[in-house]
C-alpha cells in the first residue's frame, strides 16, 4: 500500500496524543487536569475527552481564579509563560495550606523555561511539584499547514529571546523523521540558521536510525526578512477571513457558528480558499443555486429514488449546505467590516510600496487611528520598512493621536514597535524627496523581482503571478525563494544577489529537488498571503508543499502581540 504525504502528516496528531497520554500514564490513578485557557483549542486538535478519561483524567478544569479541583493528583498543563506559571504555583501554595496530601504535576508546553525551575526552587516547591515538559508535534490545519500555535515574533524580535527556537527545531526534526530528511536546504536569516543547527544536532543525537528517506527540500526564512508580507492586507478569501474572523487551530468562527477549514471535507472551501476575494461571491452564488435545484428535484422523486437519495446523498448535501451557509455569511461579514474602506486601504498600501504620495499616506494613517488603531499602526510600520524609516516629525502627530484616542497606558507602544523592528527613525534627507530616489528596501526587493511591473492588468480570476495575493503589487520573499529552489527562477543576477546576502546558505544538490515534498518554514510566523502565494507555485509545478511555522498570523495579530507585551 502506498503511503502518501497526507498519511505521513496524519501521524503528527497521533504522535502528539501519544506524548500526552504517556505523561498521563506516568501519574497512575485518578487525576484532575487543569489547563491554561489558551492551550485548550490546540489540545482539542489531537485529543478528546474520551481519550483523556481512558487515561485516568477525572475532571478537566480551565486554569482560572477560584477553581476547585477534587482529586488529590492534579496535573497543570501550562505554556512556558513565567507569569502564568507563577499563578499556578500560587494556587498550589494555597492548596497545600489546606490539604497536605496532594500531589502536583506541572506539565509545561513546549519546554520548561530556565527561570521556572528557579522559581519553583525559590517558592520552596522543589520536589513537591513535579516539573515535566511536553512538546507536542506541529498542529496540522488546512491540509498542509503546520503550526506550533505559539506566537514567537515578540519573543524573537522584541525581547530578542531565542528560548523557543529549540521547540521549532525539535518539531522540524520529527517532521524530517516522518516525511524524510531534505536533500537540499535553503536558509535565510540568523534565527533560521540557529534552528537549522539545532535540528542537525538533534538528528545527530536522537536519530538512532536514518529517517524515512532523504527527499525533497526545506526552505527556512526569518520573519524579519519579509515584513511587508506580514503587514500588507492579503486579498484572497482565506486572507481576508483571517483579517476579519477569528481563526484558531484551523477552525474559523463567525457569529456563533464555526467550521473546520479543511479542503478535504469542505469542497467549496477548497475551491474558494485562494481565490481573489472579488471572485468568491459569484462562485458561492452559483453553488447555492445548484444545491437549491438539487433540493427541488427531490420533490418530484419517486419513493424508491427518494430512499436511495436519503441513504446516499442527503447527509452530504446537508453538510454542504451548512458549509456553504458559513462561507456566504463569512463573505457578508468581511464586506460589512471592510467594504467601504477596502479600496482606500488598497490604494494606500500600493502608494506606500511605490513610495508615492507620502503625505496622503501619513494623513490616512492619522485619521484612521481613532477607529482602526491596528490597521493604522500596521500601515505606519509598512511605510517605515519600505522607505527605510520615518522621521520623528512624521510620527509625532500619529503617536499623539493614538495616545489621545486609546489611552496613555499605551505610551510604550511606539518604543516597543521600534524595538521590534517595526519602526525605524531616520533624519529628514533632501535626497529622499527626489523623484528618482529609491529606498534600500526597494532596491533589494527589485533585485529579487518582488515588485512586478505589470504591463497589462493582472488576471485576478486565474492568476499566474504570486503577487495577486497583494493585489498585484508585491511578491512575498518566501515565494521567490521557493521559485528559486525549484529552479523556476533562473536569472543569474537574482541568484548572485541571494548568494551575496550575509545570512544566506544553500546546502545540497539542487537537481535533486524535483521529487519529494518542499518544507517551507518561516521563523516568527507565516501569513495567509504567503501561503496562498506559494500555493500558486505548488499548483504550477506539481510539487507538494508543507508549510511550517510557529504560528499563522495576520498583521493585526502581529501588532497586537507587540501591544500586549
Amino acid at each position: 500500500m502506498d503511503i502518501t504525504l497526507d498519511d505521513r502528516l496524519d501521524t503528527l496528531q497521533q504522535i502528539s496524543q501519544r506524548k500526552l497520554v504517556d505523561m498521563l500514564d506516568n501519574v497512575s490513578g485518578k487525576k484532575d487536569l487543569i489547563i491554561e485557557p489558551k492551550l485548550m483549542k490546540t489540545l482539542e486538535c489531537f485529543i478528546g475527552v474520551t481519550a483523556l478519561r481512558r487515561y485516568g483524567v477525572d475532571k478537566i478544569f480551565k486554569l482560572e481564579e477560584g477553581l476547585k479541583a477534587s482529586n488529590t493528583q492534579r496535573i497543570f498543563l501550562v505554556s512556558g509563560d513565567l507569569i502564568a506559571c507563577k499563578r499556578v504555583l500560587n494556587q498550589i501554595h494555597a492548596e497545600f495550606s489546606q490539604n497536605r496530601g496532594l500531589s502536583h504535576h506541572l506539565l509545561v508546553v513546549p519546554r520548561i523555561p530556565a527561570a521556572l525551575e528557579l522559581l519553583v526552587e525559590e517558592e520552596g516547591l522543589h520536589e513537591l511539584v513535579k516539573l515535566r515538559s511536553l512538546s507536542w508535534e506541529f498542529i496540522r490545519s488546512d491540509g498542509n499547514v503546520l503550526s506550533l500555535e505559539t506566537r514567537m515574533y515578540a519573543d524573537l524580535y522584541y525581547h530578542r529571546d531565542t528560548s523557543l527556537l529549540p521547540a521549532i527545531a525539535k518539531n522540524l526534526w520529527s517532521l524530517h523523521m516522518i516525511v524524510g530528511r531534505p536533500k537540499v536546504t535553503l536558509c535565510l536569516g540568523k534565527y533560521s540558521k540557529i534552528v537549522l543547527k539545532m535540528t542537525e544536532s538533534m538528528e545527530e543525537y536522537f536519530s538512532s536510525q536514518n529517517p524515512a528517506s532523504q527527499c525533497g527540500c526545506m526552505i527556512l526564512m526569518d520573519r524579519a526578512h519579509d515584513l511587508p508580507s506580514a503587514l500588507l492586507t492579503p486579498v484572497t478569501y482565506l486572507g481576508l477571513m483571517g483579517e476579519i474572523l477569528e481563526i484558531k487551530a484551523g477552525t474559523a468562527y463567525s457569529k456563533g457558528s464555526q467550521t473546520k477549514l479543511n479542503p478535504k471535507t469542505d469542497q467549496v472551501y477548497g475551491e474558494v480558499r485562494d481565490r481573489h476575494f472579488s471572485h468568491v461571491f459569484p462562485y458561492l452564488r452559483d453553488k447555492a443555486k445548484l444545491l437549491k435545484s438539487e433540493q427541488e428535484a427531490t420533490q418530484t422523486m419517486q419513493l424508491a429514488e427518494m430512499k436511495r437519495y436519503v441513504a446516499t446523498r442527503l447527509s452530504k448535501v446537508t453538510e454542504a449546505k451548512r458549509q456553504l451557509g458559513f462561507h456566504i455569511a463569512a463573505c457578508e461579514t468581511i464586506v460589512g467590516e471592510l467594504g467601504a474602506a477596502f479600496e482606500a486601504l488598497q490604494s494606500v498600501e500600493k502608494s506606500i510600496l511605490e513610495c508615492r504620495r507620502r503625505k496622503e499616506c501619513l494623513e490616512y494613517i492619522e485619521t484612521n487611528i481613532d477607529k482602526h488603531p491596528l490597521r493604522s499602526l500596521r500601515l505606519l510600520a509598512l511605510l517605515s520598512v519600505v522607505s527605510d524609516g520615518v522621521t520623528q516629525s512624521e510620527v509625532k502627530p500619529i503617536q499623539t493621536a493614538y495616545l489621545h484616542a486609546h489611552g496613555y497606558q499605551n505610551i510604550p507602544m511606539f518604543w516597543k514597535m521600534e524595538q521590534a523592528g517595526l519602526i525605524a527613525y531616520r533624519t529628514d534627507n533632501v535626497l529622499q524627496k527626489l523623484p528618482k530616489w529609491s529606498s534600500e528596501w526597494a532596491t533589494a526587493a527589485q533585485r529579487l523581482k518582488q515588485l512586478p511591473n505589470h504591463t497589462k492588468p493582472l488576471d485576478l480570476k486565474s492568476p499566474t503571478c504570486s503577487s495577486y495575493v497583494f493585489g498585484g503589487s508585491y511578491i512575498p520573499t518566501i515565494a521567490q525563494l521557493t521559485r528559486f529552489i525549484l529552479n523556476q527562477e533562473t536569472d543569474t543576477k537574482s541568484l548572485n544577489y541571494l548568494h551575496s546576502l550575509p545570512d544566506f546558505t544553500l546546502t545540497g544538490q539542487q537537481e535533486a529537488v524535483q521529487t519529494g515534498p518542499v518544507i517551507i518554514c518561516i521563523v516568527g510566523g507565516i501569513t495567509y498571503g504567503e501561503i496562498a502565494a506559494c500555493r500558486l507555485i505548488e499548483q504550477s509545478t506539481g510539487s507538494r508543499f508543507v508549510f511550517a511555522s510557529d504560528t499563522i498570523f495576520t498583521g493585526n495579530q502581529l501588532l497586537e502581540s507587540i501591544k500586549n507585551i
Partner: protein
Amino acid sequence: MNSAKDDEIYWNTSDKLVFNFEDNEECQIFGVSQTTAICSQAGTFSVDDDADDYLKSDITPSNLKPLLSVISEKTLTSILNAENLHNVHQEKPLVQPDITLRRILLGQPFMLEQYKSLASKTELLDSAIASGDGNAILIVIIFIAKTLKQSLIQRLLLERPEAVNIYIRYLATTLRTNELTDLLTMLGRSKDAAMTNLQIVLKNTPNVERLLQKLQNCCRMHFTALSDCREGFYVQNYIKLLEWQVAVKATEFSKPLDIHSSVLDCLQNACQHHWNASEGSLVSPTNLSKQHDVSPRQYQCVALTTRASMQAWDDIESIVLTKGWLGSKKLQTSLAIEDILQILHENQAPSSLLAKFLSYIDDLDRRLSLAKKLQCHRAVIDIFVLQRDRVALSEYKSSLHSQSEQYFYAENALRASTVKWKN
C-alpha cells in the same frame, strides 16, 4: 564604583594576610627562610612597616625541640594529609561547554557547578550564545549571577548584548527593577531603562493613586534626564490627566471614569457634563483639549458626536463653523463633511440641519448623492431645483409618500414660476 574597588582591595588583602600567616609556619617547619616568604608577599602588596614588625615578633623561639622528635612522621603525615584533602579539587575540573549545552538543548540533566574559574564561566556563556538557545543563555547567566560578584558580571555582560537582552527580560518579568535599572544604566541605555521601568509601572498598577505616585517617581528618576524623549512628555500629560480625573471625581456624582480612560474619553465626559463651563475652568472641554494639545480633528469629532448624541443641535454650528468676515458663516473643520453628516444622521439630526450642512458641499452631484443616501428629501428637492431638472424632480416626488411634508415641498417646487426648467 569606588566602593566596589575598595571592597576588592579589602578582600584581596585580608585573604593574603591569612594565607601568608599560615604559610609562614609551614615554611619554617621545612626550614625555608622566612624572608623569602615575606618577599613573595611583598610582590602582591606594599610591605607595611607594622605588618613587618608583627611578623618579626612572631618569630618562633629557638628553644623548640625538632618536630619529629616529638611526634612520629606518621602522625605528621596524617595531619598534613588531612589538610591536603581540602585542596584536592584544586586540579582543573572537567569542563566541556559543548557537552553541557547539548544536554541543556536536549533536555538532559546537567551540572554547572564545575564551572568555577572565570575563564570557564566566560567560555560557557560564549558557547551558550553561540548555540543560540535562549533558555541555555539564561541558565548560564543566572548561574553566573549567583557565583560572580557584580562588577565581574557587568563586565561580562557589557560585551555580550545577546545575553543582556535575555537577562533583562528575566529581570523585568520577575520585577527586579533595581537590578534592571542598574544594568541598563551601566550599559548606557538610559532610554531603555526609562521605558522598561515605565512599562513595569503601567502593567502592574491597578490603582489610580498609586499609579499617579509611581508615574511621578518614574518621571523624576528616569525621564527628566532624557531631554529629547517624547515619551517623557506624554508621561507628564498622563499625570495631568489622572489629576484631572481625580479632581473631576471629587466634584461630581456622575459615573466615575475608568483608570484607563483616554483623553478622548475624558473629553467626551467634559463635553457631556461641562459643555457650558467657562473656558478657564478645570473641567471645561476646551481647557482639557488645550492641556493635551488635542488635534482639531479629534476635538471636533468628539464634541460633535457627544453634542449630537444629546440632541443639542444648537451647539453643532459652534463646533464646526466660524464667522467669516462679512458675518457669513463658514465651514472650518478638519473633519470631512461626509463624516460630519454621517454623525448628524446617525443621531437623527433634524433634516433642516442636515440640509444646511449639505449646502456646504459645492459639488452638486456629490451633494445630491449624499443627500439621497442620508434621505434628506428637502435637500434633494432643492438640488433638483438648482439644477432646473424638472423630470428628475417629478420622478423623485413620485417616490415620496403622498400627503407627506416632503411631498408637498416637492409639489410646491414644481409649481414655482421663478424656475426656468431645462426639461
